[in-house]
């Protein structure tokens, strides 16, 4: 649910990084936080357990400049990936405007990726939203593991598992070093803001 503040001339959008546990959602946000100029990002809020797993969500507010005179403010959220946190994931998805699905390339996590994407589809349905109608990009993370002995999925296999029907843009990434992180962010921001702008700002229609 985007917020268009005509008084302050601001558009607020919520983008959620979704995916199975340990796929690198928080690592994406940490890289963005560490790399972006302080003028363009707010404080990063993290609620994690004593280990490094996200308990509730991470939040990183960004300021992405102006479109049609409106300041574009994006709030990046992550969800906890572990299976048991389904209710929490649904809470964080409330009011989402754009989605990044972060897939884990480890061959042993193949089923987890598919299960998590199905979970996302179902959670959106429960919120009266449709995955096919929500701005979405896929990120195939941890591509640095491809050149190691660890068995990984190929891009073709990940496409086959996750993107056969969705046919959305995909990005290969190594979130720990930042490869592909901003390409992913740029693509989902553009899709999300375009979607909101088409609905409200460019058509001049209010809802």
């Amino acid at each position: 649910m985007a917020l268009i503040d005509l008084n302050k001339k601001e558009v607020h959008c919520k983008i959620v990084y979704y995916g199975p546990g340990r796929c690198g959602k928080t690592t994406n946000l940490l890289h963005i936080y560490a790399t972006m100029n302080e003028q363009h990002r707010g404080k990063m809020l993290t609620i994690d357990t004593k280990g490094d797993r996200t308990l509730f969500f991470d939040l990183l507010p960004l300021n992405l400049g102006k479109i049609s005179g409106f300041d574009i403010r994006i709030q990046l959220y992550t969800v906890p990936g572990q299976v048991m946190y389904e209710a929490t994931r649904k809470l964080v998805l409330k009011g989402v405007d754009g989605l990044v699905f972060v897939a884990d390339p480890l061959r042993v996590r193949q089923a987890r990726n598919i299960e998590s994407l199905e979970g996302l589809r179902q959670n959106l349905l429960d919120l009266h939203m449709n995955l096919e109608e929500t701005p979405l990009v896929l990120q195939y993370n941890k591509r640095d593991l491809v050149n190691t002995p660890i068995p990984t999925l190929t891009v073709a296999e990940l496409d086959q598992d996750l993107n056969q029907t969705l046919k959305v843009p995909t990005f290969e990434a190594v979130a720990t070093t930042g490869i592909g992180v901003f390409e992913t962010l740029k693509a989902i921001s553009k899709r999300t803001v375009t979607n909101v702008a088409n609905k409200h700002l460019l058509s001049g229609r209010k809802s």
Partner: protein
Amino acid sequence: MADLVLTAEIQNKATELIENALIKAGVSAVLLIDGAGNVLANCGARGAEIDAISLAALAAASLGATAQIAKLIGEEDFSLLFHKGKTGNIHFGRLGNDLILVTIFTDEVSLGLVRCRVTEITQPILDIFEA
């Protein structure tokens, strides 16, 4: 959950209601937010000091989690949530399905007064957003 277009008129009317009912009663700050964690209005002397974006996100999530807890014990929802600190307190009140009023106040203001005033302005605020 449809996108929300916030006009100056809506914001001014809501702010005026909050100022008259709560800020004049002595509370430190009031945030009006939606269920997705967007800040719709930020009022009060301490409003500018507070990290409103983080507070709104946490308040929305906290009240969302509380609703799930309510369901686990057979309740539809808990309409309010209150945390008491050493000197500062925070009250979360749900207004309708999508709005949340977060009130921050010291011990100099009674919880009863805050609850009463939040109840009083609930319907008028909903009317502004539904108009």
